[in-house]
């Protein structure tokens, strides 16, 4: 990177990275750390899939299998999915999108990264010294009384990382409120900002309840007495209420940012203003708010009262509507556009398809009568992987390709990108579609061994997982390759309209040489004329 104008990557010392307060560098630090956690969790998943090739599960012992799915869940949820788009792409892009020099509290931002990794190391430590087999849901009284292993260590890891996400959310909320460039009103904001604002609301308002719930578990485990203990008249179901008060909104932490990325990518690669901007923007807020009052649909068979189940069921059905609105608007955006099939767009197509299936199968689980059968089966596993992997991972990959030129100043190899997107899509469907059938047949989740009649579906699923693995490995390789051999990226390779594209790639440390002034609505694309949109005026 010699002979380049000063940019945020110019300084190379380790110290300059570990003590950086630059939101772009912190974004990259997050990218590297979540890759590590993702790799560990993916290995766990691979071992599980291999074990399940055989109905008797001979590859690993039952307790090992249980530790594997706990590790997979904990790492994927808290150390990959939740920080993926917000902490990596959000950190990198938000200040640039709103024309700011940095987030509102850069030191807190760095502190978040350290908290996140201290938490991650706690979790890995708990695994190395013996593992935990409670599942990522830590249901009581198993987690408080009966489970062996280092439950408290792992809980402390999640607890500490939780404060990292609270601070990230806080930082984003304040940044979006207070740091916007002159002229950048709320309805001129890119939809990525709206979706991350909604995400941050959830991070800030839900995570503390998880923290206190986990703390209560740790106290109960260490002290031997607590409110979840049925022996004292406490209630294990109370834990589920409090846990899902966080963990259901957390699902939206994992999908809203993905929706934000898709709302950027689709207008750009169809050269068209997004259809129904206000509806897409407010549907994010609606999801964040209504999403807080649907948690009881995880508890339809938990012995919750019938009336509470009704309330949660109706709210769960309602929360499907804003998601549907988004899908319809994305589709309508394509109408009379000028559509190209670059890698980010392929991921966006994949996202719409898989997210739609994931969302629709959610309706099955919101219908209490059907959920009684499907609850805790592979149907649920397939459903949430369609949202988490089909939705979040695909949109994360799409966003990473989209902003890769901005982040690194290099282009990734386009053909390889398209192939990888296709391989991922195929591998994903082969892995998880059979699991819908398995679930309907009645195969429960978290089973190390299973009746032989289910084997066919497991074999298909494992075969799909190996293809999916290739789909993940390819980008890893060509991204690294592109750092040295990729074409140099211009400031705006996609001819996109966002402010982040109005500054060089990679951007200077202060993001903009002069603070931009915004006078236009976002997504000022023109399908008839395939040309660069007018430059925004500068101060």
């Amino acid at each position: 990177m010699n002979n380049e104008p000063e940019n945020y990557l110019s300084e190379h010392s380790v110290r300059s990275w570990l003590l950086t307060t630059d939101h772009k560098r912190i974004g990259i630090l997050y990218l590297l750390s979540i890759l590590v956690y993702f790799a560990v969790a993916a290995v766990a998943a691979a071992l599980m899939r291999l074990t399940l090739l055989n109905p008797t599960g001979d590859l690993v012992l039952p307790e090992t299998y249980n530790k594997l799915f706990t590790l997979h869940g904990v790492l994927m949820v808290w150390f990959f999915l939740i920080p993926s788009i917000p902490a990596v792409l959000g950190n990198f892009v938000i200040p640039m999108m709103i024309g700011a020099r940095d987030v509102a509290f850069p030191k807190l931002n760095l502190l978040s990264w350290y908290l996140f990794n201290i938490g991650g190391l706690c979790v890995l430590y708990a695994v190395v010294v013996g593992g935990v087999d409670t599942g990522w849901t830590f249901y009581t009284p198993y987690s408080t009384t009966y489970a062996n292993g280092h439950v408290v260590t792992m809980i402390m890891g999640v607890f500490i990382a939780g404060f990292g996400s609270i601070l990230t959310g806080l930082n984003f909320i304040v940044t979006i409120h207070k740091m916007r460039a002159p002229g950048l009103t709320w309805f001129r904001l890119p939809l990525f900002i709206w979706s991350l604002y909604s995400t941050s609301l959830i991070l800030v308002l839900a995570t503390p309840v998880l923290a206190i719930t986990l703390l209560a578990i740790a106290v109960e485990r260490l002290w031997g007495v607590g409110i979840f203990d049925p022996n004292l008249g406490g209630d294990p179901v109370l834990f589920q209420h409090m846990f899902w008060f966080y963990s259901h909104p957390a699902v939206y932490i994992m999908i809203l940012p993905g929706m934000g990325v898709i709302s950027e990518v689709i207008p750009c690669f169809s050269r068209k203003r997004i259809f129904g901007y206000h509806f897409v923007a407010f549907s994010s807020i609606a999801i964040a708010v209504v999403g807080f009052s649907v948690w009881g649909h995880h508890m339809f068979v938990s012995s919750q009262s019938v009336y509470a189940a009704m309330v949660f069921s109706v709210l769960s059905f309602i929360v499907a509507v804003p998601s549907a609105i988004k899908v319809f608007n994305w589709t309508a955006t394509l109408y009379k556009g000028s559509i190209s099939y670059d890698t980010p767009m392929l991921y966006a197509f994949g996202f719409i398809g898989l997210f739609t299936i994931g969302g629709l199968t959610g309706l099955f689980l919101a219908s209490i009568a059907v959920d009684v059968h499907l609850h805790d089966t592979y149907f649920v596993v397939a459903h949430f992987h369609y949202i988490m992997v089909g939705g979040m991972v695909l949109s994360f990959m799409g966003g990473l390709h989209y902003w890769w030129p901005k982040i690194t100043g290099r282009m990734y190899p386009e053909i390889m990108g398209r192939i990888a997107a296709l391989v991922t899509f195929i591998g994903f469907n082969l892995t998880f579609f059979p699991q819908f059938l398995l679930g309907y047949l009645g195969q429960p989740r978290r089973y190390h061994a299973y009746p032989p009649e289910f084997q066919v579906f497991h074999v298909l699923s494992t075969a799909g997982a190996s293809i999916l693995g290739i789909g993940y490995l390819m980008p890893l390789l060509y991204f690294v390759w592109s750092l040295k051999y990729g074409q140099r990226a211009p400031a705006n390779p996609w001819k996109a309209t966002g402010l982040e594209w109005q500054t060089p790639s990679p951007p200077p440390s202060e993001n903009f040489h002069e603070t931009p002034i915004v006078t236009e609505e976002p997504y000022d694309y023109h399908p008839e004329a395939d040309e660069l949109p007018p430059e925004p005026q500068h101060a």
Partner: protein
Amino acid sequence: MSHTIVPLKTYATIFVLLMVLLGLTVGVAYLDLGALNLAAAMAIAVAKAILIILFFMHIRYGRKLTWVFAGAGFFWLAILLVLAMTDYATR
């Protein structure tokens, strides 16, 4: 954030009010009002909290946005309590 300097008298009045409310809440606790005991205790606590938030924490002189954020925490807590208690109250 505006730079309103609150007069000493206001702070002193609020402080006196808070102490009176403290006395009141202890007094009410020793009366048998049935279910109203809890309601009274909570009403007084809410009144105290509102006084502190409005005057000591300067919300009254701040931006509308701060009002929203001050309310958000309590609103979301209400979601948790109301929906979870829907379960326990109808078992």
